[in-house]
């Protein structure tokens, strides 16, 4: 079934803080449509210090919903309300050593229950600000609603653009049919038609002769182009707290170093593929992008 971490299993089999807190003064009830899960979080907050003294949960849901609820209560006990509000769903998932992408919404539900409970304590009304849809991209856990909204907001027309804006489809590519369907629907609403041909950016064969009339690029020109291509990609990586640095160029091999959040990221190889694609496109010749610490083969060019 699911590939749950040992931590998730442990918190499911032996949940902490299960049940309602007696004389709770903050209660948050939320549900996630995408799984039919629902959670009631009850807190006992010290009115003077706003410290959460006790936290309890009641959950109608699957293993990871129960584990996420248990994790949430463990994380927030002893925090002030303001500190607790800084807990993100990623913090809950990290506490559990990760959740399967299909189950990330369980951690979102935990965070929302917390927001709802704090709002309840402060006499405010909590309103959910996002809607969840069917999961389309399983590599990056992107749902249909987000894809659709992003397409509308940015006037996207191709699968590649959707991947650039939302990451959806940037991994194994199995969801491209689903993304094409969303694109087709949104474009049809706008009186346009989805054009699959536009989805395949053709590395125009004309580009190479135009940029290097009558001959090959000099080494310096090549390296400048590679540098420029990498510079163009860096903002995307930096948005996700990662980065990339050009280390060396040896024949067809381009050596780069991934830094920041890219280090150890399971999608690093996908990112590398993206960088390679970009350089190949800009250079008009095939190169291979490799990590700087990759074993160097005897230069064979």
């Amino acid at each position, binding site marked *: 079934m699911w590939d749950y971490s040992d931590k998730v299993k442990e918190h499911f*089999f032996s949940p902490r803080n299960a049940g309602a807190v007696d004389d709770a003064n903050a209660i948050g*009830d*939320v549900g996630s449509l995408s*799984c*039919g899960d629902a959670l*009631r979080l009850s807190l006992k907050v010290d009115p003077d210090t706003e410290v959460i003294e006790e936290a309890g949960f009641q*959950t*109608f849901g699957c293993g990871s*919903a129960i584990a996420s609820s248990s994790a949430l209560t463990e994380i927030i006990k002893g925090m002030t309300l303001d500190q607790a509000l800084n807990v993100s769903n990623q913090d809950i998932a990290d506490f559990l050593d990760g959740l399967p992408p299909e189950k990330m919404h369980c951690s979102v539900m935990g965070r929302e229950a917390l927001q709802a409970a704090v709002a309840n304590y402060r006499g405010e009304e909590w*309103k959910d600000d996002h809607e969840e849809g069917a999961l389309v991209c399983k590599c990056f856990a992107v749902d249909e609603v987000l894809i659709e909204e992003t397409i509308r907001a940015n006037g996207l027309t191709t699968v590649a653009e959707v991947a650039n804006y939302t990451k959806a489809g940037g991994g194994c590519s199995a969801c491209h049919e689903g993304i094409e369907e969303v694109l087709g629907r949104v474009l049809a609403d706008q009186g346009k038609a989805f054009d699959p041909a536009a989805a395949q950016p053709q590395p125009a064969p004309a580009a190479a002769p135009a940029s290097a009339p009558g001959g090959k690029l000099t080494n310096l020109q090549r390296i400048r182009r590679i540098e420029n291509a990498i510079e163009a990609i860096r903002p995307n990586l930096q948005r996700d707290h990662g980065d990339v640095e050009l280390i060396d160029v040896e024949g067809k091999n381009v050596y780069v170093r991934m830094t920041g959040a890219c280090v150890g990221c399971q999608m690093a190889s996908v990112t590398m593929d993206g960088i390679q694609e970009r350089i190949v496109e800009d250079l008009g010749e095939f190169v291979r992008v490799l990590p700087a610490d990759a074993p160097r083969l005897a230069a064979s060019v």
Partner: protein
Amino acid sequence: MSQHAPASGIYLDNNATTMVDPEVVSAMLPFFTEQFGNPSSLHQFGNQVGRAIKQARQQVQTLLGAEHDSEIVFTSCGTESDSTAILSALKAQPERREIITTVVEHPAVLSLCEHLEKDGYRVHYLKVDNKGRLDMQQYMDLLSDRTAIVSVMWANNESGTLFPVEEMALLARSAGVLFHTDAVQAVGKVPIDLKRSAIDMLSLSGHKLHAPKGIGVLYLRRNTRFRPLLRGGHQERGRRAGTENTASIVGLGKACELAMVHMDDETTRGRALRDRLERGILDAVPHCFVTGDPGNRLPNTCNIAFEYIEGEAILLLLNKLGIAASSGSACTSGSLEPSHVMRAMGIPFTAAHGTVRFSLSRYNSEQEIDRVIEAVPPIIAQLRKLSPYWGEDGPVENPEAAFAPAYA
């Protein structure tokens, strides 16, 4: 028969897949080693394999009660058989643009039909009542000369409910419409005699009856207009090209022979075990009920909805005790909604998520069933303790109002 059971664990998920019978395994083994020939070859290496396939075809024919062995077409799985049948009917009768099926079909049929709708075909989905039964009047009203094919499952994989496919096939025939049934859950569990029926096409899947995965059959009544899905070589008389999966075909033949032998046992002893399990759980656990049509279902299947808790959590706790079952909860499939079958029967949200299917096989013993009867009630109680819909000793008063979360 329990001496064949896996060393540890109680396997009650036989509608998902079954253990390959040890006799089936031994029948298959020579076809990985000395009997490796291509059945199409003239020489002795191929010749014997060809004979083994012929025998397997007859074993399948016997189990299905087909009139001719040439009506048996080996495929790779139940899904391929379903797709072949439906797409063939559309291809062979391009002027007919409608399909009749049911809302509770397996995704092998439902997803294909939804896809065909995008291609402009009109699909009528027959509804079911709260016991999962069809409205035959609705069915008759829909049959017309626009209908290319009717595809209705023999038995539902989740609830085990049986559909009156033989009667429906007769109605289709008198309306001049092709009839296909996805019988992957029924073959080997209920007696089938196709030569006495009006069923034109039937799908079966090996791994549901103790044969391996990766082998299926399309029964194709002689003289049924047919267009192959896979064209190529002359295998299966050109109706399903591709070199035969010889070992699995031989295994399926053996499995069909064994199914004939064990069918009585499964419908008497097996059914009694299922009933014992069901009674034991219903007696010990409050607020649970059997879904589907208990009086008219597969003898091995029991689907119970446990209210106010969620199925995946139940399965995880059962699994910890070595008990394997499955659930109609959304969470086990990664989909948005709880089982389409449970929703179609109007099972309330808080119960549909807590449905658990126990599906038995001839390998289950009474001791196993008694252990499950013992294991289930504390698990349900443990999870209900965590549930916001549950109070001290029962559901909170007016549960839907007492806990009405902001859904996002």
